[in-house]
Each structure stands twice: as C-alpha cells, then as structure tokens.
C-alpha cells in the first residue's frame, strides 16, 4: 500500500513537468505581448517597452525562459506579475483559499444532497419519487449555470432578501451558500442519477439476495452491502469533479463577485501574465493528480476485491 502510494507520487513528477511545459509553451505561442498590452490604446514609448521586456527576460528564447521559470519554481519562487509586480505566490495564496472554500462547500452539498436523493430514488425504482428525481435532475442538467445563478440571486436576494446579491465577505459561509449551491447543482444532478442507477441495479444482485436471506437488518443491508458497492462509479465521478468545480467556477464567480481562481486565471490569460497562468494551472494539475490518487485508494475501501500491492 505504502509503496503503491509512493510510486504514484513519483509518477506525478514527470506529469507535472510535462504539463507545466505544455502550458508554458502555449502561453508563449499566444499572440499579444503582455508589456505592449499594458500600454493600451493610448500613446506609449517603445523604448520603455523594450527596456521592461529585457528586464523581465521576455526577449529570451522559450527554452531559456522555461528553464529560468522551472529553476525558480523548484526553489519555491513562482515569480512576479508583469503589471502589478506582485509575487504570484501571494496572488495564489489569496485566491486559492477562496476557491477551495467555495469548492469544498459545493462539493459537500453535492455529496450529501446528491447521494441522499439518489438513495431515496434508487431504493424504489420507477416509483413516483424516482420519476420526480429524474425530472428535477433533467431541469438542473439542462439549465446553464448563469441562468440558475441569476434566478437564485433574484429570488433569494431581491425577492426574499435572505442574502446579499453578491458575496460581501468570502470568509463567511452564509455568503458563500448561494454560489456554492449554484456551482454544485450540475454535479448534484449527475451524482443523484449515478447513485440512483447503480443502486437500482445492485438491488437485484445476488449478494443482496444473500444478505436478505441471511436475515440481516435492513439498515445494514442498505448501508453496508448496497451502498458500498453502488458508490464506486459515484466516487470516480466525484474525483474528477472536484477539479472541475475549482476551474469551472468562473461563471458563478462572476455572477456572485467571488475573487477566486477562475477569475484570476482568466484575467491573467487576457493580460498574458504567463507566469500566473502557469502557476495556477500547475496547481490545478496537482489537485487533479492528487484527487485521482485519492479516488483509486477509495476504491479499495469501498470494494474489498480491489487491492494495491
């Protein structure tokens, strides 16, 4: 087990280097020069642009820029932004916790409500409540997140007045409630459907019959025998979803004015702040790698037939 984890962790290193290089090269290939873009529409002095570029090393070839970047990164230096001259580590340290909080909130919501609904429906396939769930999830899946976002904003902030229209304080979980629900609702629909289907299927399996025949109490049959096996596909989905929630929050972040990773990386991209984009994207790659490891380990918890040596 320990060796398996160690091996997986070691495998992350080439993946990490490869992905950072790809992102770095893509940023390099994009048209538009960040220093020139700073000067905007108005008059400017080309001598200043040239001088800033050479100070930042932007006039060097790609491989040299990448080597400098990586050697700094290994020493824990993410670099500084071209325009704001702020440490990128600071920028990440500011935006990441906000996104992480929002993501975890949305994730918890997805897991609790999604699996809950899925269980309720899956235990009685084709009943009224099962059909009801299908209809509800269909609505959630087909509704774009900005529609849901503005709708919730309108109902809860303007009609009922229970929350503020936008997030005033990103530390406050009450404020984050609306965006988290909006963010989590699409995944919620998938999770509910996945849970429901695999529960409904496993209900008919042999080991369930055996469990019932053994005379086990109902909560044990459902909670241990049925749930454990039915959650494998759900966990797979949730694993990749945590990364999606983090990066895909940009629309929701926009509607509710949350200054998270999505907005930060989008701004950096339009301003060609290469180092910021690569820094954040690398972190997200790490998040994906770690969650996929976590998911693989969870398989073993859920299904004793799966083992890692």
């Amino acid at each position, binding site marked *: 087990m320990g060796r398996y*984890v160690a091996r997986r962790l070691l495998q992350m290193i080439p993946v990490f280097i490869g992905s950072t290089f790809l992102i770095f090269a893509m940023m390099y290939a*994009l*048209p*538009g*020069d*960040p220093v*020139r*873009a*700073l000067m*905007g*529409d*108005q*008059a*400017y*002095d080309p*001598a*200043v642009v040239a*001088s*800033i570029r050479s*100070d930042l090393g932007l006039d060097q070839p790609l491989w040299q820029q990448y080597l400098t970047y990586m050697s700094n990164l290994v020493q824990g230096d993410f670099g500084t932004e071209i*325009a*704001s*001259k*702020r440490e990128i580590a600071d*920028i990440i*340290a*500011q935006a990441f*916790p906000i996104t*992480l*909080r929002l993501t*975890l909130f949305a994730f918890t919501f997805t897991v609790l409500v999604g699996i809950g609904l899925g269980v309720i429906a899956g235990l009685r396939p084709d009943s009224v409540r099962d059909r009801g769930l299908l209809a509800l999830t269909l609505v959630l899946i087909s509704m774009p997140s900005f529609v849901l976002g503005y709708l919730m*904003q309108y109902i809860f*902030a*303007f009609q009922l007045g229970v929350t*503020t*229209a*936008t997030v*005033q*304080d990103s*530390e406050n979980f009450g404020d984050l409630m609306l965006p988290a629900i909006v963010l989590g609702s699409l995944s919620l629909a998938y999770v509910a459907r996945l849970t429901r289907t695999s529960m409904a299927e496993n209900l008919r399996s042999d080991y369930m019959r055996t469990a019932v025949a053994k005379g086990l109490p109902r909560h044990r049959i459902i909670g241990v025998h049925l749930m454990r096996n039915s959650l494998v596909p759900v966990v797979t989905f949730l694993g990749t979803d945590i990364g999606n929630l983090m990066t895909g929050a940009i629309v929701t*972040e*926009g*509607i*509710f*004015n*949350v*200054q998270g990773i999505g*907005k*930060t990386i989008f701004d950096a991209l*339009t*301003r*060609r702040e290469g180092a910021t984009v690569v820094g954040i994207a690398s972190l997200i790659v790490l998040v994906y790698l*770690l969650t996929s*490891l976590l998911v693989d*380990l*969870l398989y*073993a*918890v*859920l299904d*004793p037939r799966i083992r890692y040596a």
Partner: protein
Amino acid sequence: MRGAKSAKWVAGAIVVALAATACGSGSGDEGKKNASGKPEGYVSIDVGEPQKPLIPADTNETNGSYVIQSLFTQLLDFDAQGEIVYTNAESVETQDSKTWTVKLKSGWKFHNGEAVTAQSYVDAWNWYANIKNNQQNSFWFADIAGYDDVHPEKGDPKADKMSGLKVVDDTTFTITLKDKVPYFNYKLGYATFAPLPKVFFDDPKAFGQKPVGNGPYKFEKWTHKKLIQVAANPDYQGPNKAQNKGIQFKSYTTLEAAYQDVVSGNLDIIRQVGPTDLPKYKQDLGKGAIEQPYAAIQSLVPAFYSKTFKDIDPKVLQGLSMAIDRDTITKTVLNNTRTPATSFTPPQVKGNQDLGTDVFTYNPAKAKQLITEGGGVPENKLFIQYNSDGGHKEWVTAVCESIRKATGVDCVGDAKPDFPTDLEARDNDQVKSMYRGGWVADYPVNVNFIKELYHTSAESNNGRFSNKEIDGLMAKADKASSLEEAVKGYQEVEKKLLEQMPAIPLWYYRINGGHGEAVDNVKVDFHGDLELTGVTVK
C-alpha cells in the same frame, strides 16, 4: 483488512487537504464595520484592481488613475468645461511658450507631513523621465529640454536630471522646453505630473503598495483584488477638498455584479452600467442614473498599408463614412451610450468646431456616388478589426450591415480574441483593412485628438497615415506663441483631415453610470471620470 488500511491513507489525505484550507483562511478580515464592511460616511465605487503599483507616472488605465487622482494633486486641473483650475500651483505662466514659470501655493504638505516644494516636483519628474525606471508615461516629459539625456532611445541615460528643470526657490521652479509648446500648461493637468515625497526615493517598490501623496485623500489600505480604501485628508487646501469621509474602491468581477449591488444598496456608485442592464437602469436607479457625454471618440481607422486602402482616394473613405447610419446605430445597438460624431474632436475640448460638412451624415446615394468616383474599394470588400472581449461585436456588425446596404461594399468584422492580440496586429502592420480605434482625452485641447493620432511620427498612428502637408501645418501650429493661436492652427489641420480622412469618426462616448440613494452630488469630469471629492453622503 486491506480496506481498513487504505481507509487510513484516505483519512490522512483528507486531513492534509483540510489543513491546507485552514492555513489559507486567516487572510484579510479587518474592518468588518457593517454588512458591506464600509465605515460611516465613506463612499463606495466599483473601481477594480489597478494593473500596476500606485505610482503616478506608471498608471494610465482607469482603475489605477482613479486611485492616483484621489491620492495626488498635480499643479492644475480642469473643470467640467475643460478650463484650467489651479490646484497645487498658484500660477503657471509663460512669455514665449518655451520657458514656463511655476509658482506653488505655500503651506501644502504630503500626507506624512513633509512640505510640498518645487524640489518635490523637480525630483519626481526627473525620476519619472529616467529610462532606467521604466515608467509607462515617461514620454509625457519629452517636451522638456534634456529629456533625451535621461531617456535616450537606446542605451543607458547620460544624466539623471533634465537640464530644463530649475528650482528657483522653495515654491518656484522653471520649465524650459525643447521647442515652443503653447498648450504645455494643459498637459500639466495630467496625473503623471504629480510630485513625490522624499520617502518615495528610499523604496519605490514599497511606495507603490502604500503611496503617500499630497491629494484630497490619504491612503488607508489595499486588500488586493478586493478593496482599496482612502480617507479624507483634513489638512487638504485645494479647491477640491473631500466632501465625504473617504472612498472605498471595490473590485467587481463583472459589471452586472456591481450593478446588482448598487440596486440592493451594497455599493454607492457604479461607473458604467453593463449592456444587459442598460435598458432598465434609469427605471431602477431613478434620480441616481447618470448619463453624460465626455471627451472621447471612437473611429474606424484605415490601415494605409493594407491591400484595401493603399493609395486610396479619400473620396472612398468619405463615401464609407456617409454609408454609416450613426443615428440609428447609437440609438438602437448602442442603447444611447454614444453620440454621433460630427468632427475629429469631441465637443468638450478646446477648438472643437463645426466642420460644415455632410461627410458624417448618413446619405446612401451620395455615399455610393463618392465611392464610385474615387475608384471603389479594391475587391469590393473590407474588414473591420476589433477585439471581441470588449463588447464591440454588436456595433461592428451593425456598421458593416449599414455599409453593405448603402453601398454594396462587402464588409466583415475581423474579430481578435482579446485586446493584446488586437494591439499586436496593429503594431505589426497586420491589419487587413481597418481597425476600431478609441481615444480618451488626456487634456482638453484639440491637439490631443489630432497630433497624437495623425502625425506621421505619432506612436498611436497605427493606420500609418502620413501626409507632409498636414505634418507641416501641425509644426506651424506648434510654433504659435499663444494657446489660442495654436488651437486655431490645429483647427486648420482638422479641416485638412476632413479632406484626407485618416480615420472615419463614428461617435463620442457617454458615461452611463449611476448611484444609490445613500449618496448625492455625483458629477462627471471632462474625460468621463466621476468627481469623487464632491460626492456627499446622506
């Protein structure tokens, strides 16, 4: 039990993840005064994160400018009509438009108590102009004698002081220019000409995060990407003393989010209402709605190196101009956010004139006729380049439609995904036929809209328009000994521009903003910024 063992691993990973979030959550929770965290008597406005550190000569985008203008006061400023109002200066005078004498008001102090002297100005300007300091607005000092020594086109500076700046006494200094510039005092109203206290030179980097100015507000705090807070300066002596207790510049991810906050009372002022809310903002905000024109223009600029417009007969351009139905487009597609243009300069600047022409009036028949007379558009097709991240798509499509309908010339929008890409194509002479040009006044004189855009050597002349006669006329106007004469000279230039059509002016900008019920007296200045010092809290 394999399962139980790996459960431990999973639990361990979850603990690590939770610890990581807990680490990050200790940031920035100072100043929770009320629901929106605003101290009593302060005014909040949607001004996003400045792109750069807060140094006057390194800021020219709007967000940073708002903060800089609240913290710093330069020699003079302009009123809503574009007339000079002396702020830090007692007077700025000249006999020959070449040597200018500046007298400062005495008793002014920086926020740290240091006196504002002639030396504070001269030292600051020398630092700004120095190429080593990479200041974006350094070229603003290019008129001053000795600029080339501190800012050579290549290599290291030969001096660290411009010979044209001389301190006479504590409150007087003289500026000697390379050549006559009759409107130089108007340039001094630009925020770049602000003074700096001595602490700046110890550590410019730290200063950029925590500036000390001489303006109507004192810097309080900057929570990046969230908020900048400034407090009224009680010792301020200028005419624009703050009528409120302070300002909060709040960062919003979208115009829509900011608008929702104004409507629900969490934000006092919004500078620009987003396109989706424009149709209803007057209803929502009532008396709080702001709609006012300001000195800025949008044009279509032909690239005179392109296949389409190389050696084109100006008649074709006049024809294209007449094929654009400005009235209808501004009213419908643009929701009244613009006013149709009638010349190359907006009405708010000195020297704006009635050109007495029908080139800017929609007239399909004459448009067609002029284009035919001029030899037509090569390949009967043209492109309008724009950046698709700036909300230009709708009107570019409408303009194209208008041209196509009126003249039969095929017109297609050439979208660049974002502004940097758009600029790069302009700089590298890769514009296919014409691009969307925009210009906001730096100082309210027609020169700013003519020389900086259409002089052969102007940096922003990306259409590469070049006409010796017009360059000559500009040189002549610059030699005038009074502002009035220079302005008149440039009016002549503008008449020539109409004949040559270096650009097709489309419309002047209007500001469409608003404020909530908690504040009052929100006024707009000549280049479209809201005058925050005058805002009162009810």
